[in-house]
């Protein structure tokens, strides 16, 4: 079952679309689930499908098409490092290597305490700040150096 707060958020989203186009809210619905749970299970997809009156497989298509949806638990803080061209030219490989050594995990992995997950991402449209990563797809951190990464991780450790 979708939680009451997710249902409420979806209902608000649904107002943006014609009443017979409920499936237009599928991307938002997936986002709400991920925001609450950190990832989206196939059970959640079934729940979304029945809530929006669309086929389960159609929800699955959307969830697997967009890489920002986590299809497995990715830790409390999912760090997504852009590894596209501009960032790579500016040292994204080093960012990944440093994060890996600090967190003790590779790309696609979650730290043993479940606190951090590391992902590889596509261009975030902020190349002027390369190299960069996002935290939980929400907060963009750019112009990364080892010091800056230490500082960000220190803050995340506290939360």
């Amino acid at each position, binding site marked *: 079952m979708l939680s009451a707060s997710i249902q409420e958020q979806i209902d608000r989203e649904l107002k943006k679309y014609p009443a017979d186009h409920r499936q237009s809210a599928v991307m938002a619905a997936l986002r709400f689930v991920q925001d609450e749970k950190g990832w989206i299970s196939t059970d959640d997809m079934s729940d979304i499908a029945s809530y929006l009156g669309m086929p389960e497989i159609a929800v*699955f298509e959307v969830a697997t098409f967009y890489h920002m949806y986590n299809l497995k638990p990715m830790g409390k803080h999912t760090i997504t490092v852009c590894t596209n061209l501009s960032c790579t030219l500016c040292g994204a490989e080093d960012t990944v290597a440093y994060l890996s050594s600090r967190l003790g995990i590779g790309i696609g992995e979650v730290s043993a305490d479940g606190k951090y997950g590391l992902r590889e991402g596509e261009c975030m449209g902020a190349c002027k700040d390369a190299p960069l990563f996002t935290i939980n797809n929400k907060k963009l951190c750019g112009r990364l150096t080892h010091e800056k990464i230490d500082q960000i991780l220190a803050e995340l450790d506290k939360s």
Partner: protein
Amino acid sequence: MINIEIDGKLIETERGSTVMDAAHKAGVYIPHFCYHKKLSIAANCRMCLVEVEKAPKPLPACATPAADGMKVFTHSEMAVKAQKGVMEFLLINHPLDCPICDQGGECQLQDLAMGYGGGASRYAEEKRMVMPKEIGELISTVEMSRCIQCTRCVRFGQEIAGQMELGMANRSEHAEIVSFVNSAVESELSGNMIDLCPVGALTSKPFRYTARSWELSRRRSVSPHDGLGANLAVHVKDNKVMRVVPVENEAINECWISDKDRFSYEGLNSPERLTRPMIKQNNQWIEVEWTAALEYVANGLRQIKAGAGAEHIAALATPHSTLEELYLLQKLVRAMGSDNVDFRLRQSDFALETQGAPWLGMPIAELNSCDRFLIVGSFLRKDQPLIAQRIRNAVKSGAQANVVHAADDDLLMKVANKAIVPPSKMADMLAQILKALILRKEAAVPAELLEVEPCDAARAIAQSLSSGERSAVLLGNLAQQHPEASRLASLANQIAELSGARFGFLAEAANSVGGHMVRALPESGMNAQEMLKQPRKAYLLLNVEPELDMHNPDLAMSAMKQADMVVAMSAFRHHASEYADVMLPIAPFTETSGTFVNNEGTVQSFKGAVKPLGDARPAWKVLRVLGNLLDIPGFDYDSSEAIREEAVSASGKLDNRVESVSYKAGGTVASLERVADVPIHFADALVRRADALQKTPDAAPPSARMNGEVIRMLGLNAGDEVSVGQGSARARLKVQRDDRLPSGVVRIAAAHPLTAGLGPMFGEISVERA
């Protein structure tokens, strides 16, 4: 109309059509994979790229609207280069395993690679691999690596089958066709995806690796199952049916067939096939020659006629028998002086009499253009899968479907209004709709409707029907098997008349209409039910398994057990071995020539595809010889065509007009009543023995289905074992919760061994904890 030019040919085509449509019209072939005339345009394979004058780059013919004066080149340098390029890309990840591929020899990709591809690939790197998925018993996805992502299977599910069960997960080179968490595909039309797949990614599980396409000879035939009469191609190797595929007939089955039509052939090769005539002597079955068996039958019939009288001879046939067989059976029985012959085995109200043979009331193809439907008492998807598909199509383009039924099964289409009531309330519901219509039209209210007060649903249905221009009122299988079938038909007929709608019967089986046409039913004698209620001395059974094919299996079995002589003409060994005296092996539809008359009255003949198995013989030949042995004149046919000619010339017309009967029900209403469906894969003897179909969810063993309220009222829980009873007839079943049922009913499927000990398909039933 607009004019366009393709490869120098001037073509007139409709405004809004595509370049592909125009090319088809002109007979110009443009290579394609994802395009299919019955599916939406995806334009994702890019194989149909053509050059269009003044366009800077090649355009996909399937998605480019034809414009007046457009000049298209399908073989220009630009077009050929584009097609070659696309083919090279398609083959990058496609395994070149044609020699061991099941699709080899009938593969679109193989053919087009031959015509449009290069001799060798420049791609030398590793190809991608897609892991196989389990999607059920009918479709294999073991070689999913061959998929070229045309998405025809996905679109078929969404647009034709009405349920999206396959989808494209992930993207770019990780994209793959999957079902949701490996769930099995359940659609009753799923096999069509195998035909649609242009490569060998989706293959037929029962057929794969049993024959190569070029070893097969193709024989045309007609489906022996539902009333549609789908056109089939039976593929044969070494005198054995290897598979069945559709033959396109736009007026009947378009290019689809149901899974039952496609996979039932497995039953033809079942180990249960009866291959030798057998006689029971001293309680032992012994194999005999045909002459001995038929002499035995003829003598037995003569003795009973001389002793008990001709009226003690009774004949029952399933409506899956051919026109020739039904005609000869009634001719034989009547010539012997009996009138006890019937094929309406699951009917219970024989007051239902139409002026002629009841039929659809319109051509099948016209269903697509109807704008209002009232479907009364039909498990539409399972009983008539492709008629459901046509109605679904009509609903998609704006038609309104209204339903009066005893179960709210998902029709996979938008239902405008529905009234889901117990069977005993269905006539009342129709009366309410009729009254609502009369009030709308301000016509005079007949006396018996004065006290009827239309409910909201009835008013809404009346409103919907009267707002249409091309409406149809259709009576389904349940409505015809219903104990008040004549009342339902009379009311439905009046509703149709008042709303200007067509009135039609959905035919239960392949030859239901044909059975009526050749009058394989009593004129003055006993009908299928009377023959059992007043047991006869001799029964001739044609294709019938009484405990599965009849309205009241309990009654049928007790009649069989009391009889002096039961002659079972059947393609299969079945329970007849317990009560019959003679078993005659007759040929199923692939082993005989014959004729079926489908729902719209089209007479479709077919020839045998293979020789009869063992000593089995076509039933028309068996009946002919029996006629000769009984010295009945006019039994000297030398071909089934001769019988057909005589049968058709003597046959009645199609006419749905019914006598008006009082709508008021006589009996008292039971507190708990039975609703029986005939599950799609148990409806006839052949499909019951088709292995793969028997493993699908549609063939799950029946349970006692009730809604939550009924379960609570009876103090039961879902999953409990219960004993259900109709009089002394009992069966043990599991309780299943089904909130799509109305209160006051228990839904228990008929036609299954688990429920074969029960009584009639409708009426009072008791449920107790076992």
